[in-house]
């Protein structure tokens, strides 16, 4: 790393020449981001020693999600939440007295584009932090960029774990946080012994199911009656539904995503599986997904998340009202949307604790940061860069909302590399 920087400096001269040449070129965007810090007054030079885009009045933060492509469905909520949080922070006076300026880039549901745009946000725009990525694939693609250029990413999605980076704060839950408590609940509450797992065929469902299987077999002493995966976008589930009928598991454990999700629940309902009698536990359905599935089709299923829109607490009521005011009455708020909302606040608090925008100092200040106004209640950053959070189980209602039926009594410690579950 140090070696790289040395070389960068050596190349400083001709890159300045290149930039001048660039200035003459119309049509190439994003070329005006000169290191403005050079002209700043003393306080800025104190809070920004690494050439970030910080002026006396402004600090630049990037937002990097898919606004187009197949993932736009999921990522829109995150963009909205991050913009809301930033607007609220600016209203409160900004960060270290500086208003946040947003540069939004479109990852276009294409992983190299995420890497590319991440690099642009860090190298060209000198963003002090980036809120972004949604799928694991996009994060995996962008991660080396954040590590190489020492950027800071706030990643909102609940995900499979098995990762920990100096340059990322994970504001969603990792798999054990999300799954274990809810499995305990379903075993205790419903007396569940046998489970049937259905998932989309990619890393998150497979890892989550692996963790769930270990827990079911080793801790709950139950059985896994079946484990099935379908290609992303698959829409025919009748065969697996028959298999479920044959095996008669106590619990269907589902992590199907995207368009398949909609097909799965519609066909489940059509096949006469009554979710008020057959327990179904899902880790992939938030309020956002229910919009497409239809509340009627999934009513009665249990979802485990750390956040539901219907949570009863003053923080959340304020948050929901503000969100609807900004983005319209019809919008729904899912778990990831709330997690995305946390990012800007966690960053602001870490910056203020560090007294600096420098990534190294912010990272150093981050562990232990508490956010008491979080809509989900209370979160705290763990030294492993994930959040301490509660896990909740809620029942889907026909109107598309959830009714929380269980909440873990304590904050659950994030454990991205769980021993005994790998």
């Amino acid at each position, binding site marked *: 790393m140090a*070696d*790289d920087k040395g*070389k*960068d400096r050596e*190349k400083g001269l001709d*890159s300045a020449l*290149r*930039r001048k*040449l*660039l200035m003459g*070129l119309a*049509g*190439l*965007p*994003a070329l005006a981001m000169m290191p403005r810090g050079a002209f700043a007054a003393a306080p800025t030079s104190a809070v920004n020693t690494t050439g970030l885009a910080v002026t006396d009045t402004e600090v630049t933060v990037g937002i990097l999600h898919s*606004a*187009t492509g197949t993932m736009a469905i999921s990522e829109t909520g995150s963009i909205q939440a991050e913009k809301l949080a930033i607007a609220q922070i600016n209203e409160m006076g900004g960060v270290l007295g500086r208003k946040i300026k947003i540069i939004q*880039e*479109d990852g*276009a549901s*294409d*992983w*190299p*584009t995420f*890497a*590319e745009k991440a*690099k*642009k946000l860090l*190298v*060209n725009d000198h963003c002090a932090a980036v809120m972004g990525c949604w*799928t*694991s*694939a996009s994060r*995996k*693609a962008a*991660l*080396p960029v954040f590590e*190489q250029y020492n950027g800071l990413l706030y990643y909102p999605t609940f995900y499979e774990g*098995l990762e920990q980076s100096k340059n990322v704060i994970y504001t969603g839950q990792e798999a054990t946080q999300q799954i274990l408590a809810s499995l305990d609940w379903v075993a205790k509450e419903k007396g569940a012994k046998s489970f049937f797992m259905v998932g989309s*065929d*990619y*890393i998150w469902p*497979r*890892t989550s199911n692996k963790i769930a299987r270990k827990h079911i077999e080793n801790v709950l002493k139950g059985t896994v009656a079946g484990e099935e*995966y379908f*290609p*992303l976008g698959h829409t025919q589930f009748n065969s697996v539904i028959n298999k479920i009928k044959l095996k008669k598991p106590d619990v269907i454990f589902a992590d199907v995503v995207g368009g398949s999700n909609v097909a799965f629940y519609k066909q489940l309902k059509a096949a006469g599986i009554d979710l008020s009698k057959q327990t179904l536990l899902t880790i992939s359905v938030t309020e956002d997904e229910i919009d497409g599935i239809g509340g009627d089709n999934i009513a009665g299923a249990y979802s485990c998340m750390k956040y539901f829109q219907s949570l009863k607490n003053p923080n959340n009521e304020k948050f929901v009202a503000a969100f609807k005011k900004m983005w319209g009455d019809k919008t729904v708020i899912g778990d990831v949307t709330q997690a995305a909302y946390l990012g800007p606040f966690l960053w602001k608090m870490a910056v203020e604790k560090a007294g600096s925008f420098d990534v190294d100092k912010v990272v150093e200040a981050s562990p232990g940061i508490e956010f008491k106004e979080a809509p989900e209640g209370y979160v705290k950053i763990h030294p492993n860069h994930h959040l301490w959070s509660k896990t909740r189980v809620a029942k889907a209602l026909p109107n598309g909302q959830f009714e929380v039926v269980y909440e873990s009594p304590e904050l659950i410690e994030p454990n991205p*590399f769980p021993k005994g579950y*790998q």
Partner: protein
Amino acid sequence: MTNPKTSPMQSLSKAVTVNDNPFMKPIEWVSLLLLAGVILVVLPLMLDGFRLNLVGKYLTYAFVALGLVICWGYAGILSLGQGVFFGLGGYCMAMYLKLEASSVENTKIQSTPGIPDFMDWNQITALPWFWQPFHSLPLTLLLVVAVPVAFAFIISVAMFKRRVGGTYFAIITQAIAAILTILIVGQQGYTGGINGITDLRTLHGWDIRQDSAKFILYFVNGGLLIGCILMAQYVKKSKLGRILVAMREKEDRVRFSGYSVAGFKVFAFCLAAAFAAIGGAMFTLQVGFMSPSFVGIVPSVEMVIYTAVGGRLSLFGAVWGTLLVNWAKTSFSESFPDMWLFGLGALFIAVVLIFPNGLAGIWREHIEPRLFRKAKGLAPAASPALPHGTPAE
């Protein structure tokens, strides 16, 4: 074969012939120099490291487009599965880089150190056999081309021997792209699944993530591309190139002139696969990862459009087309993300309906005549080597 009827006009022929079939006509040399100048001199001077790396990434697609000119433009074989070969080449390279990044030292926190991290997460405790060859760099460089070409050979021999052609071939290649994507995503223990093979660091000890490495790789990429253009030009100019054109028009006539048509199609398809594979490997090196999203149908069709925009019969056009579409994509999606798909869709339709010969056609029909009218006396030499006729079916 001996010719029993010796002609009385042997001397005559030498006088009459003007068609001496040079490797490249003057105008083509100019085009080549122009392209090489832009890629190797102008762009590196003009762009910062970030933008240059982007152009480098685009140029890896140009390899695919180049192959499609031969395979689709000349031989009339439309493949909607070029992503398969791009991906296979890229994966071969990524496997080597991943093994190098997964040294025992780097992976000591894993339960099985020394294997790629995603294998460890999937409870795989030993490196699978088909990963073994990728410990060796020379072998990897060989396999980067050999694996995709062998795959292309199997597919194309099976299909062309049975005279599967045209639309059927296109649809079957598309299905193959779909199958391979599902397989790679599903076998995540061996392939890295949907995330692909990520976090690649060094090539034989040389850190490919640093800016200087990217700078050098850009030139390697550009050089390889120009090498491939020259190779394609050689093929195009050889009798084989003319046979491909002939085959596209009147397959039966070629067959009944004593040629095994399938063999020539297999060659064109394998050549296109080889180019795509080189592009894929360079992509992995410059971008730093490889994932199944470059194998599937959507990227494969997009690569066809690069060729169509450039002009499906023009080698240089393929490169320009690739650069243009990608540049448009990047700048459009930066400024009007919502409009981008409209633009891309309209581009597809316009290229088919209005500019079937793409950029190369526009250049030939509108720009070149004007340019060379001014430069007196050059006009005859400027006539293009490419046929003006209707595009391939």
